[in-house]
């Protein structure tokens, strides 16, 4: 009698094994599926503008340092648009995906990428102080502004290229930066600029530089 009961239990255990394997396989499959799902860029909203001066008098653009003293022929501005709002909601979906995936399956740690939800449609630059006899305070100098890519083995481009860069997918950070250079020589001892960025939802972001001291090139 006892022997029969033991046999029955063993039979039940044996019947359960395939079910357990199926459940584990399903779970494994789901995690594997999400592990292989590429992360979509996280949407950001540009809500902040920063315009600072950088030194472009040397061979290479001094991209990472700020300056308040600029050579008259080497005026360069670093324009940064960023999303300062907390974007936990945007990250929630990414975190959820990560929960359901095998982190160790990734060959490399993929940093998140970001894409602006509202695109830049226009960039206008205005001088707040006189530049020379023909360009006075308050004048729009956008025509004299060029976009410089970070690549030093490249020429400058018009502002449309800069807008394309700002509207593209941004790696690593929830912000985008471009360099603007002035073609005209500044004949004043000081200079100050205002940059207005218009987004496709009508929002205008306006950034003003500090007052730069100009030294003759």
């Amino acid at each position: 009698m006892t022997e029969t009961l033991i046999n029955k239990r063993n039979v039940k255990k044996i019947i359960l094994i395939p079910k357990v394997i199926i459940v584990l396989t399903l779970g494994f499959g789901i995690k594997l599926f999400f592990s292989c799902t590429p992360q979509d860029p996280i949407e950001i909203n540009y809500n902040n503008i920063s315009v600072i001066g950088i030194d472009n008098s040397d061979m290479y653009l001094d991209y990472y340092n700020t300056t308040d003293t600029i050579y008259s022929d080497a005026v360069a501005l670093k324009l940064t648009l960023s999303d300062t709002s907390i974007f936990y909601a945007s990250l929630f979906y990414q975190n959820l995906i990560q929960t359901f995936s095998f982190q160790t399956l990734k060959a490399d740690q993929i940093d998140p990428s970001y894409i602006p939800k509202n695109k830049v449609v226009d960039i206008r630059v205005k001088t707040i102080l006189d530049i020379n006899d023909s360009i006075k305070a308050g004048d729009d100098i956008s025509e004299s502004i060029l976009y410089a890519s970070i690549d030093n083995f490249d020429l400058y481009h018009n502002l449309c290229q800069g807008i394309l860069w700002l509207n593209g997918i941004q790696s690593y950070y929830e912000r985008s930066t471009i360099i603007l250079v002035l073609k005209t020589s500044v004949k004043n001892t000081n200079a100050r600029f205002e940059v207005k960025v218009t987004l496709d939802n009508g929002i205008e972001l306006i950034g003003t530089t500090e007052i730069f001291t100009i030294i003759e090139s």
Partner: protein
Amino acid sequence: MRLTLLTIFYLISCGLFGQSSILKNQEFSFSIGIGELDIEKFSPNENLDFINYVDYYPEYTDFIILKLGYKFDLFSKMSADIKLIMMDDIIPDNYDISLHYFVRPRLGIGIGSILNKNWITYFEEYQIQTLPDYYLVDYNVQQFTTYDLGFYLSPALKPIDNDIFKLQITCDFGISSFMTEEATFYHKKKLSNERLQYHYKTKTDYQPYIQPKIDIRLKAFKIKETSFGILLNSNYYFSNRSINYIRTIQAWTSENRINEQIEPSKHNYSRFEFNMGIFLRW
């Protein structure tokens, strides 16, 4: 060029290992020698002159030459000569191929093709010297490995042609051109935003040359049907050469583009070669 070399290897292979009834008096040779360049150089002017930067050293031997030759007679009056030429990099990427038709036993006319390698180096110095107010953004040494491709018509004379001693004198009249090369320089003006880009693209431009050659073969001994001997050959290439090019200057942006056709002055350009080696004929 790879196709040409493959064709040459194929012909040699067919000749060496094939049982061809068309090819007669086949001969394989190996020789080693020296090459000396002599190039007229001009002072830098408003245009970059690439010939000024061709590598050559007046005090030293410019290059060591190794030649692998394969020669054979075709039908009764034709003779083909294929030479693969290597310099000290041991890359067989130079050649001299000719085919002669002997209208008389000692007088013939032929056609041929040559390919010679040249190095043009340090021409970024021109940019640095002529634009002192600008940085050269890339200071790396610039070098072209440019090939000089030529085609020629070649009268040939065999004053002595017997089983022991053979002397052949030819004089190639041809045209040759350096193959196209491109170089780009980026400049940044000191204390200024201004950026410049200079782009050079050389043009194929065939220019005449003359190249007398002398070839001597002396049979040393014979084993069965195969003869062994020594050979001496020498040639002197002379031409008035220039490397013409298109220069594109762009300032600030790529929209501001100035294209110019530049034809620098012609330089006296000569190359003397002397080789000696061994051959086996069957």
